[in-house]
């Protein structure tokens, strides 16, 4: 085989990287993955802090929030807006797609790096720029944008309505930059997966997580265009004075909603799929089972991807679109519940006959299924047009999508992070602390959002900063529920310190992790721990699928992909 690492070693010699080139301007996919991971987590902390500030306002209206100050209505709006934007675009996307995609794709496909390493670096730097741009909006006159993460015009398009003349434009620019960063990254992922697989790796030998990230990247590429165009149009409306979305001058505010949700709904699957992939890998490894019906999973995922482009208008049932359209979109929306339900059944079926060990990553992966089911089933209420008339834009919606996005962005990330931590950093994590962190996150999470379902059914609407002006919502009982949810949030946030302590402690520990601590099959565990520049001592050849656990012909219960028969 021509592809040995010797070519690479000689290549490496003439640039012995200095600190800056190794850690900052790195083109190494693993370093870029870590950069994405830590930037995403830092943004996650900022987003969580925002949640803390506005949840405190909801529980104790008018209170001077410790470490934050007074949450005025304008500040409240900008907090909920940016909490949503950050958590989806600057946490879920970079961590799930970019960080795990960058780290896993070359390793799992058995190659040395991405096909375009410099493009990869550019993608990260544009992403970082976009994050900085977004955060600057908090320090400009008028403050940060406060028109919700959906940014419906005319509110977002005109300064006299939003009262944030600069904040709203900065928001649009940041989101646009972020999309460009992920377009570049996505092209890299897809091309790498199509062209650079290890010799012998057929399409059905690719680990599900790689498939999912690639499909997610394609979904993203296919859906983000209209919104990028829309963002350009919105920016022109704000700054140049065009009238794309201004009804008084012949524009149409509903157009934005179509452009936004044409992207916005597939976006849910863009972040969902990588999390599902991570879960699949973790569940297979820790139940020592082959993934149930690999090909069905793949086909179902494709079907979900295609269907996800046909459901967007269920976000607009009561938005003034032609009411006849709602009937079509009710059908497509309920149809998409079928493949998602099927994926859940597959995961449950995978557990059957397994030999399950409840390690920290496994706990996270299992809780993903358990909680995502709640998010999934509550979506049916909202997809059914008749019921959505009442539920639309209530806290029921809010609780529903937190039950999808929390499993995706938080649980999925922790499952992947704890599972691949040994490979990323070369150290094992502390299991006991990991479990404390797990229970300390998962119980308060449910305690936050189950009450919010109740509040939503009781008719409480979103994005209202203080309910004491609504006599029916200002009852002491409902206020008590709000306080309960907020206290749960505080508990959950407090437990995150356990995680950071665990990370630092494990990272500092002197004990090195073995190359394949979980006895898993996929190629990243073949590489040395942590993988050096160039990843493998000798680039592997693949002989079988990724989930050959407990094969009857073999004594050991795992069978690495690169081991000859």
């Amino acid at each position, binding site marked *: 085989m021509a592809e040995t690492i010797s070519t690479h070693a000689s290549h490496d010699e003439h640039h012995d990287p200095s600190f800056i080139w190794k850690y900052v301007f790195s083109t190494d996919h693993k370093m870029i993955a870590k950069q994405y991971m830590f930037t995403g987590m830092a943004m996650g902390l900022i987003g969580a802090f925002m949640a803390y500030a506005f949840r405190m306002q909801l529980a104790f209206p008018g209170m001077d929030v410790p470490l934050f100050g007074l949450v005025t209505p304008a500040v409240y709006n900008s907090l909920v807006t940016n909490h949503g934007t950050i958590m989806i675009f600057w946490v879920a996307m970079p961590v799930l797609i970019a960080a795990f995609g960058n780290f896993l794709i070359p390793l799992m496909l058995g190659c040395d790096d991405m096909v375009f390493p410099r493009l990869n670096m550019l993608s990260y730097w544009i992403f970082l720029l976009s994050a900085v741009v977004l955060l600057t909006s908090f320090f400009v006159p008028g403050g940060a944008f406060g028109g919700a993460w959906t940014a419906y015009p005319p509110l977002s398009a005109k300064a006299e309505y939003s009262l944030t003349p600069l904040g709203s434009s900065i928001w649009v620019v940041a989101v646009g930059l972020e999309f460009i960063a992920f377009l570049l990254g996505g*092209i890299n992922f897809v091309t790498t997966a199509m062209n650079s697989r290890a010799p012998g790796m057929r399409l059905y030998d690719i680990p599900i997580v790689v498939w999912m990230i690639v499909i997610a990247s394609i979904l993203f590429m296919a859906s983000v*265009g209209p919104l990028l165009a829309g963002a350009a149009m919105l920016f022109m409306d704000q700054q140049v004075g065009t009238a*794309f979305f201004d009804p008084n001058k012949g524009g149409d505010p509903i157009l934005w909603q179509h452009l936004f949700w044409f992207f916005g709904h597939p976006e849910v699957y863009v972040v969902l799929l990588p999390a599902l992939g991570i879960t699949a890998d973790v569940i297979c490894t820790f139940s020592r089972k082959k993934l149930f019906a690999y090909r069905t999973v793949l086909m179902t995922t494709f079907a979900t991807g295609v269907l996800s482009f046909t459901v967007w208008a269920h976000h607009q049932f009561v938005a003034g679109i032609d009411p006849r359209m709602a009937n079509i979109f009710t059908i497509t929306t309920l149809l998409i519940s079928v493949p998602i339900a099927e994926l859940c059944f597959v995961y449950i079926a995978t557990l059957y006959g397994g030999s399950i060990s409840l390690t920290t990553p496994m706990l996270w992966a299992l809780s993903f299924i358990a909680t995502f089911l709640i998010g999934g089933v509550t979506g049916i209420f909202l997809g059914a047009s008749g019921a959505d008339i009442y539920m639309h834009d209530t806290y029921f919606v809010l609780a529903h999508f937190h039950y999808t996005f929390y499993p995706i962005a938080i649980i999925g990330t922790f499952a992947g992070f704890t599972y691949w931590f040994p490979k990323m950093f070369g150290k094992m994590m502390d299991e006991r602390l990991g479990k404390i962190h797990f229970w300390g996150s998962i119980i308060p999470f449910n305690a936050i959002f189950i009450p919010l379902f109740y509040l939503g059914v009781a008719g409480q609407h979103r994005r209202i900063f203080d309910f004491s002006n609504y006599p029916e919502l200002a009852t002491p009982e409902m206020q008590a529920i709000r306080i309960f949810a907020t206290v749960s949030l505080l508990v959950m946030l407090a437990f995150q310190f356990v995680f950071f302590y665990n990370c630092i402690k494990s990272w500092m520990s002197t004990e090195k992790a073995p190359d394949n601590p979980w006895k898993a099959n996929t190629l990243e565990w073949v590489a040395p721990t942590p993988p050096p520049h160039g990843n493998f001592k000798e680039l592997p050849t693949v002989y079988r699928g990724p989930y050959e656990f407990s094969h009857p012909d073999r004594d050991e219960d795992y069978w690495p992909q690169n081991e000859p028969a």
Partner: protein
Amino acid sequence: MRTIANTRSVSGVPTARLAVWWVIASEIVIFGGILMSYLMHRLAHGLWADYASHTTTWVGALNTFVLLTSSLSAVLAHKCAVNGDGPGAAKRLLITSAGGLIFIVVKSFEWTYEISHGYTITTNTFWSFYYTAAGLHALHVIAGVVIMLIVAAAAKKGRDLHRVEIIGIYWHFVDLVWIFLFPLLYIAK
């Protein structure tokens, strides 16, 4: 810097060509978004035919001709590159980028004329679409010209000849977008 990953070609399509197809795929949806929005508005507003009558069809037609011609020389450049004729490819790429420049120059005169006659981007939504769609396309032309000059400079020295094909594919795409824009903005009156 080339990685081993970059030299592999499991799908049979060279990596760079594969990537440019994906770039084009994502660009198609961007332009698709604008054009769909334009069409929806156009169908809903009969008035727009009147606004559109102020565009100058023959200028648009001239530009169409220029772009199509430049695409032809991009094809010829590719042919040279396949035969290993770097300087020949560079020459033909220069002709293509000259076509792109002519397109931009014609466009700037056209816009100057229109703006000085009071048809600015804020006049009404038709003109907003006109300037936004054509402006975004013009940005692609400019980017294409710049990249093409870089590729041509390398090709002249016989380096990176595979890039001639890549920039050619991109240029055909830019051309194709104009083929959609021209009838929508100029002809449909």
